[in-house]
Structure formats: structure tokens, C-alpha cells
């Protein structure tokens, strides 16, 4: 399944794009020396994972399995589960504010004067974003919230419709639509030109100290223009073709697991077609009782189980569904060959949560599972309590060849 139309790819490379060569094309090009690119994928389930069902009692590759790990045991050796990792100072204004800072590690989210900082995925796009149709892709299961934040701390809205995402990635569009798109881009450029020229006349009236917002504005207009030019250059390049019918969106918010699976299923396709190299997915509370057998409470309330046994049992059913999606996702990535290995080996996939204990809104000792990416995986790895999660982010950034020696709250590069 999901093979790529070779001709369209050749055409794309023909116009001078530094596209990495995909496995399907090897016979045609014979370029087996080309290394497949490295990707970075983040999946967050924002209400945490019930600790006792996740953490094993024994460390190492031969860890004694647990209810949640059982769901991904077939990938033993392909992942490392960490404990002890955290961002410091995550007590926010609202108890779930650590959602905003999972990938950025900014302190005191939402508290007076808070400003978010760049998220690890967006920092990576500075290195790898130029090579692909989309600099990065942020996905959400419920609303356009994401954990991807720009340099200035602005959230990048997430895509919540698998159908729309599919169409943007793979559908060509009618000549009419293309013409309209081209017209829009052209108009956009001429508007941004005009806004730029205005800045020159305004520049004299407003002193530089006047404030950050004006500077932000003109920088943003320039950035938007660059992005518009990029979009225009991609417009002429055919989109990759995939052997898959466009997905149908699930409207029912109660189908939490279905929605998660539909979204996560698109990721191997995005990776395989090299549409982007940086992806984040946020699995959120859907504010309704999820359609999961044996579950009668809503997800958030169950996360505040208050040690009530029946609530914990129900919570485990929901969380098992989510962990299960992650397991299936790993299987798909492993099954797809690329270069001399497979998609999983070429992707660093971090799955976890911004809450270590959702019952207490505690953002310490976060559940963090890292899979793929040619790491030496060791099963269950206990890190000293309070180890910065940023140390792991830094390691990932270095793997994807971003030249930084610190990120967020990092104290060093995590090794294990």
C-alpha cells in the first residue's frame, strides 16, 4: 500500500529540489548512498498516564511488563521509557497550563507576565524545515490548540481535520482551485508589499523604543512574505500521490480513540512522502464520556480519580486505547522500509504527557517514551528524579543536527 508515484517524484526532483530519495525510487536512481532524513515526532496525551499502570518495577531491557507496556511489548528494544524527567516550575495559573510548555519548558505558564518560548519542534524546523512542503505539521484531536510555539511564543494552530490535512498533503486540486490559489498568493504578496512600504513611512513617526509589538508586526509581515514565496514555489511542484482513499473525519467528540487513530495513521504517510520532518500531535480531553467499553465518566474527571478504584479502572481503559494507538503507529512505521532500514529507525518518536500525575495536576516525573531514531534503546530507564526533560530534547536536537548546546532548562545532553 501507500507507495509513491515515481514519476511525480522524479518530476519534483527534476526541478532542483533537494528532496531526499525515498525507498520506492531506489531502482530508478540507484542512489543508495543518500541517507534518509531524520524526523522528529511528538505525541502528547494531555491528561497523563496512570503511573502504576505504566512504570515497571524492574529496569532495563528485560523490564517486568506492566498493563500499558504490554500494549507495546512487541516493540521491546525499539523504545526507551524514562522516569524522573520533568520541567521545573510548571505550576501555572490554571492547573492544566503545563500543556502550553511541554515542548518549550518555559517557566510558570500563564502566571502574570508569562510569555512562552520556542518549542523544541519549531527549533528543529530551523534546521530541517526548508526541505519540505510543510516546515512542520501540528495536529490536534479536538481543537486548533497545539504545543508548537514560534520563536516569539505564539502558538501555531493545529490541524484537526484528517480529511483536510490529507487534501492539503496529497490532493492536487482542480485547475480552477489552483488558479484561485495562485491568484490569492499573488494578491497576498501585493498586500504584504504595501504593508512593508507603510512601515518605512511609519518608521519615522514611531521611535524604536515605542514597543515590541510594532517590531513584531513588521518582522511578521516579512516572515509571512517569505512563507508566501515558499508556498508559491511549492505550488508548481506536484504533490506526492498515495494509494489511499482520503479519510473521512469523525464528527463525534466521544470517539476519542477513533479520532486519535485516524490522525496518528496519517503520520507514517506524511513521513514516507517527506511532506515534513517535524510533527506534533496533541491528544486532548474531549469533555464528554468517551466511547470506550466500560467507561461511564468523562476523561478529565476520571483523571481526578481521587484513588477511587472504579475510576482508575475506567481511566485505564481510555489510556490503554491511546497507548494502543501509539503501538499500532510504531508497527506501521517499522513495517515501512526506507533506505537500508525503516521509517521508525529514521524517526525519533517521543510519546508522553505534560502531567506526571493528573490526579494532583503534578507536572513532575513525566511519562516519556522515546522510540525509533537509531538510539540505543534500553527498555525502562530510571533517571534521577528532577532530570530536565530538556536534556532529552537537546539530545534529539543534536541528532537532527541543530547546532545548539542548550535548550530550555537543559543542564546537559541526556545519555543512557
Amino acid at each position: 500500500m501507500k507507495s509513491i508515484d515515481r514519476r511525480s517524484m522524479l518530476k519534483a526532483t527534476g526541478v532542483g529540489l533537494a528532496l531526499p530519495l525515498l525507498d520506492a525510487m531506489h531502482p530508478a536512481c540507484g542512489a543508495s548512498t543518500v541517507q534518509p532524513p531524520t524526523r522528529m515526532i511528538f505525541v502528547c496525551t494531555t491528561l497523563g498516564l496512570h503511573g502504576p499502570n505504566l512504570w515497571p518495577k524492574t529496569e532495563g531491557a528485560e523490564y517486568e511488563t506492566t498493563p500499558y507496556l504490554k500494549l507495546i511489548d512487541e516493540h521491546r528494544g525499539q523504545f526507551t521509557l524514562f522516569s524522573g524527567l520533568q520541567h521545573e516550575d510548571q505550576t501555572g495559573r490554571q492547573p492544566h497550563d503545563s500543556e502550553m510548555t511541554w515542548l518549550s519548558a518555559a517557566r510558570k505558564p500563564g502566571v502574570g507576565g508569562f510569555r512562552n518560548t520556542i518549542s523544541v519542534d519549531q527549533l528543529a524546523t530551523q534546521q530541517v524545515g526548508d526541505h519540505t512542503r510543510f516546515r512542520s505539521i501540528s495536529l490536534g484531536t479536538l481543537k486548533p490548540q497545539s504545543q508548537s510555539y514560534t520563536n516569539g511564543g505564539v502558538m501555531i494552530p493545529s490541524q484537526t481535520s484528517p480529511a483536510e490535512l490529507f487534501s492539503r498533503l496529497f490532493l492536487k486540486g482542480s485547475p480552477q482551485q489552483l488558479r484561485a490559489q495562485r491568484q490569492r498568493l499573488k494578491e497576498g504578496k501585493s498586500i504584504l508589499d504595501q504593508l512593508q512600504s507603510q512601515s518605512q513611512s511609519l518608521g519615522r513617526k514611531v521611535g524604536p523604543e515605542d514597543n515590541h509589538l510594532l517590531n513584531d508586526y513588521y518582522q511578521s509581515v516579512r516572515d509571512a512574505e517569505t512563507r508566501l514565496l515558499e508556498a508559491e514555489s511549492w505550488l508548481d511542484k506536484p504533490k506526492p500521490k498515495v494509494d489511499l482513499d482520503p479519510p473521512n473525519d469523525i464528527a463525534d467528540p466521544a470517539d476519542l480513540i477513533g479520532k486519535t487513530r485516524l490522525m496518528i495513521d496519517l503520520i507514517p504517510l506524511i513521513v514516507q512522502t517527506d511532506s515534513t520532518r517535524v510533527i506534533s500531535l496533541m491528544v486532548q480531553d474531549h469533555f464528554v464520556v468517551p466511547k470506550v467499553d466500560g467507561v461511564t465518566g468523562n476523561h478529565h474527571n476520571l483523571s481526578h480519580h481521587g484513588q477511587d478504584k472504579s475510576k482508575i479502572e475506567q481511566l485505564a481503559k481510555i489510556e490503554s486505547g491511546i497507548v494502543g494507538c501509539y503501538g499500532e503507529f510504531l508497527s506501521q512505521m517499522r513495517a515501512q522500509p526506507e533506505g537500508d532500514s525503516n521509517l521508525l529507525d529514521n524517526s525519533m518518536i517521543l510519546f508522553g504527557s505534560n502531567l506526571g500525575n493528573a490526579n494532583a495536576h503534578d507536572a513532575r516525573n513525566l511519562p516519556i517514551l522515546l522510540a525509533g531514531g537509531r538510539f540505543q534503546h534500553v527498555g525502562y530507564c530510571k533517571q534521577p528524579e528532577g532530570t530536565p526533560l530538556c536534556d532529552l530534547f537537546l539530545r534529539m536536537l543534536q541528532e537532527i543536527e541543530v547546532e545548539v548546546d542548550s535548550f530550555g532548562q537543559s543542564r546537559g545532553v541526556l545519555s543512557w
Partner: protein
Amino acid sequence: MILRTSVFSLLIVSLAACNSQANDWREQWQRLFSESCNHCHDTDTDTNLDLTAIGFDLRQPAEFKRWELIYDRVVAGEMPPADEPPLSTDQRLQLGQLLGGKLSAQNLNARLGVGRVPVRRLTQTEYTYTLQDLLHIEGDFDSSLPDELDSGSFDTLATNQRISAVHVEGYLAAADQALSSAIQLGSNPHQVAFTDYAWLAEWHDKPLSLGGSVTRPLEKGIALFAEADYLTHFAIEIRTPGRYRFQALLSAFQSPDNLTAKVILKGQSGSAELLKSVELSPNRPYLLDVEAFAEPGDRVYLTPHISSIEAFGGLTLSGGSKNYRGPGLAIHYQVAEGPLFTAWPPESTQWLLDECQLQSQQADSLGPFEVEKPSDAESQLTKAVQRLAPRVFRKPVPASQLQSLLQPGLQALRDGSDYVQALQVTLRGMLCSTEFLLLSGSPGELDDFALANRLSYFLWKSMPDDELLRLAALGKLRDADVLSSQLERMLSDPKSQRFVRDFTGQWLRLDKINATTPDDNLYPEFDELLSNSLRTETELYFAHLIDENLSLDNLVDSDFTFVNHRLATHYALPGVEGTYFRKVPIPIDSPRGGLLTQAAVLKTTANGTVTSPVARGNFVLVSILGTPPAAPPPAVGSIEPDTRGTTTIREMLAAHRNIESCNQCHQEIDPPGFALESFDPIGGFREHYRALGKGSGFFAQFSSKTYHQGPVVDSSGITPEGSEFSGVQQYKQLLLDRREQIAQNFASQLVIYATGGDIEFADRQEISKILDKTRDTGFGIRDLIHEVVRSPLFTQL
């Protein structure tokens, strides 16, 4: 950090004294540190403050903040603590004067040539309202804009706002969407659709398990016996966004008591919005008439408000709807029409295309319309932009700027676009420009137009109307009487509702009220009607305080509130029938009264399942008193809720408070939280906690309840000043003793919200003046708004 009024009077003295002893403030403070502070605040400190490493350069914002905090805590007498050598009142005064003068001077110095308020942009809310008012359209256009970030204050606060490329792309897309919605040249999409119940024939007898058997045909119309969203929708298919009208003749069927009917709008994404609820009396038909904005894909339906357990139980027992004797909603007919436009092409189109000749393609002049090709498109475009620009930018636009604005449109004409496309591009550019998106002014007094804008974004969350702009053009708006009468006019305009909703939404965090859903098993009584009533109460209440210029004390306690039948039941207030809201007196023995005991606030400050005195106490300190506690030290965790019914959160907190470093803040945080423990997560009054399950004991086995009685609630406490209270009513009286503090916070919040500039140290004096002018009327809320607007904090940049 607790700030009392004494700080204010002190400051005024200190300003006068600031120069004489400027040089030795460092010395004097350092002496204090080494004598009384460094035992705790040294390099090994558990707190966030190390005084041995403190810097003295107040130009550094971080240093400034640290010194401001030290000032507040020392002047208020909270530091040094009791077990350190005490400071005499004179010493305190002197230290305060020295430092206060320095802080003020630094503040004012930093603003020289810049002003107090930095340039700010329209918030998402303001952006949407402005597009609606400017273009005469409805609907949300902000879906492509990133959400406002929660940065701990109002979204209007300039220093917290951001603009990114994501915003610029969003603005481009939103303007496009709004203009497309405003320019309608097709046929008038108005339609009328009656619902024909014939299609329900097969559903009347279908088995219950297949979703049937909940309706019965009547001589005229049908009866619906259970809540269902797929049987009684209005037949209109909504293809054009706009206002639609939904009418139906309803009655309570087989119902001995009043029956509530609901009109619900179901969105394509599965969202459901209660448009209206009405209470039907038996045997009295009711003509329902609702208007609502709807978008393509939306469906509107009617349903009774009936417990589904009872309805389905009854229907099963009687073998379906045919012989069912229980209550239901009779719908005799239902009809929908829309979209409702007062003219066609709509006003929005006529306004934008005023320079154009529109030709209807049909004799009936209902469209579609063709725009006649102008003989000189460039000059027509110029004329249109000349006319529209001052409205879009909310101020006069110089000719030189018009030329620049026209460029994208002229380019489009040269590239072969038609006139309407060229106009659209031009407007799109204008809607993405700084003049439209940003609010600014020059340092010093605001000019008339900047003042008109600040006023109208404060109270209407949108652009100034013709009258404000006219007065600004005449240069009259800064006249105190004119300003005051305009303010009165604006407050009585329905658009001021937007202020009430947005301000209470952010100030009291009510915009987060639905962030959690109560546990069905613990709080089965929390239904849609109740959920929809909560914010309405607080908004009507706050609007009433403004309308009647009632005292600020009403924020804390009152002898009235606004309820409908559902909320009155929730509050145990007797004698309120019907789904409409009205003002009712609160009985003397009721714990209600004031904002803190309103269910909206109580729900927002709980998490759905349990309440936390810490969360609620923090709310009182932050939102009401304006004295936010310091953040917990980085290593501190949170309390783990336990709802099994064995320990109360109070017992858990007691352990916490035995640790001195925790107790420093928790002695402030916990008491208001304890007082509010009398209210559950949905704002119901309680004497016992609820615990999940049937519980134990002989009678439990017969119970159909999903919860049982847990431990007794203890809502007593003791304030840090040592005053004891037995519950929320006594606590409210203690809180009223801090009226000045509350007024100071409220006025500050209004100023921050209205201007987008934070209240800094040097502004405290102006806040004091606002309080001085309103103290006589007991800080009347309307007076406070007037004085805020008169204050230089408002009238100057």
C-alpha cells in the same frame, strides 16, 4: 504579598521626599537586611529571594520587581517576621519613603517620551466585533487566528501581546472571509420551510432500542416524550450564514406540571448551543419565536427537558409511546425562515459598493446582481477608498497614505481583475494594516480620535460609532461634560453587554467556566439548563451594579441576585417560576449574595469533581483582593485529591500548614478557600461532601443514588489577622473590612483592561485619587467607571 492602603498614603509623602536622601537608600536598606532579613534570605534560602546577592540598579526590570516586592512587604509590616528584630513605625516609614521615591522616579523616567501604555493590538474578541460592526455582518472570522495566550492578565495588556507570521497569515485569511461574507451579489437566499411530520410515521412505532417510539402523532403535529436531537429539527437547510427565525406552536402534553422546552442549535462539529428555553404551563399553547445566527451545516431542533431515566423507564414499561401516559412536548407546527436581511443585496454589500451601479439579472430585482463595469475603474476605486478608509481606520486618513493603500487594488486592476476584486484586495490590505489592527497614540494627552478609540474598545469592544467620531472630529470629546455624557450613552447602549461579558469573563476567569464538566455520578443534577444559567446570573448582576451605580460592597455580599427557575432551585430560593431571569431578594439566612457565592464563580474555581480551598483561596486573593500569593517554591508538589470519603482536603492542608515556609502563604490562601468549602463544584450549598458509590450501611443497598454522604464540611477558619469565622457569611463580613483593598484592585483591573497598560508603582497615586473621588458613594461601580475614564491613566497615553 499583601498591600494595604497605608502604602498609598505613604507613597504620596515619599514622592516629596525623594530627592533629599537619594544617596543613602542602599545603605539603609542593607543595614536592615543584615540585621533582620539575611537569616532566611541568604544564598541558602528556600524562598525565591536572596538578599545577599540583590542588585541596586532599578533600571533592570528584574531588580525593580524585586525591590517593589520588598517595599510592599516591609511597608505593610509583614516583613521582617515576628521572630526577627522588629522595625519601629518611624523606621518603616523612612525606609518606605526612601525606596518609594526611587521606584516612582525610575518608573516615570522610563516612560519619558514613550508614555505609559505601549502600542497594543486588537484582541481576538475586539477584532471580531470590529469586523462585524464595520462591515455590518455577523459571524466569527477569527478561526484562522491563534488563540490569545493566557499570560496571567487581560488579553488587552500590551506587554503580553504578540504578533507573529501566524497572525499575519490569519489576518489575511480572516479579512478575505469577512469581505466575501459582506459582498453578496447572488440571488436573495431567503427561504421559508414548514416541517412536515409525515416522515416521522415510521418512527412512531419503531422499537425503542432503534431510537423510535419516543413520538406520537397528534391531530395537529406530534408529541415528543424524551430528549432527542434527530426527530424534531426545523426543515430549513442552512446554506448561507446569517440570522434565521424559528417559530413553533408548543404545549405541555399530558403534563400535570409546567414543562420546559428547549431550542438547541447543533453545529456541524457536534457542538450544541441552547438558544432558548421556555416554560410551558399545562393547557396553554405557547408561540415560540427565536432568532439566531446560523452557519451552513447547522441544524436547530426542539426538545423537552425531561430526565431520560424517567422517560425511557416509563416508555419501556408502557411498551412504547402509543400508550404512554407520561409528559411530553407537543409541537403543533414549526416553521423556519431566513437568512433575514433587511435589504437585498444586504446592507454590507450596498455600503461597500456604494460607488457602483448594480443591475439585477431578474425582473423581480432579487438578484443575482451584476456590477456595471465602471468607465474609469481607477478613479472609482480611489473614491471608494477615500470614503471607506476613515471608517476602517477609525480616524481621518491623509491623502498621501491613501495613495499607498490603493496600490494593491490598482495593481489588481492592471492585472485584469474586475472592480469588485480590486476593491476587495485593497480592503484586505487595509484590514491587515497597523492602522486597523493596532491602537496607539502619542505620549501625553490622547488626541480626540485616540480617546474615542480607547473609550469604545473599553465599553463596546469595538470601533467608535458615528457619534463618537463626529465629536472627535469637532474636537469636543476631551471636554469633561461631553466625555461624561458620552460615557453615559455608551453604557446604556446594548453593545456595553460585550464589556460586561468580556470583562467578567477575564477578570473572574468565567471564560474558563466550561473547562471542566462535573462528574455525572457525583453531581447528576448538573444539567444543560443549569449550565447555561450560570454565566447569565453573574453578567446580569454585574450589569445591574453598573446600571444602578451600586456599591462595590456588592462584589462581596448583597441581598439580591438574578435567577431563573432552574438556578433558584439550585440555590433553594422559593417561588421562582419560568426560564427567564429576574432580580430576586436573598433571604437573610441564605449563604448567597455577592460574587463569591455565585455558582459561576464556584464552578470555575473547582475542577468538576472536587473543590480545593487552595484554588478558591487563590482566586479570592488574585481576583478580588489583588494580592496574589507568591508562587510555591519550585520543589513543592500539589495535594493529591482523594474522593474515597476518608480524608478531607482540609485535613491534608493542615499538614501542609505546619511547615513554616508553606504557612507563610497558606495562612492567606486557605481561609477564604475554607469559607467557600460550603459550596460544591457546581456551586450547590453543602453540609457534607459527596462520595462516590452507594456507600455502606443498611439503607445503602436500596439506594439508586450514584453517590453517598461523605464527611461533614467544616467551613470555619481564622484569618491571618486572627479573626475567626464560622462560615462563609461571617467570612464575607471580614472581607468587607478590606473594602479599600478591594476597591483599589477593582479600579486597577478596570484601568489595565481599558487601557492595555499595566499599573506600575508610579500609578498607584492615580488609583488612590480614583478611590478618593468615589469613596463617598461607597465606591459606586458606575462612578468608578466614570472616574477611571476621567483619570490621566485613561486620558493620557
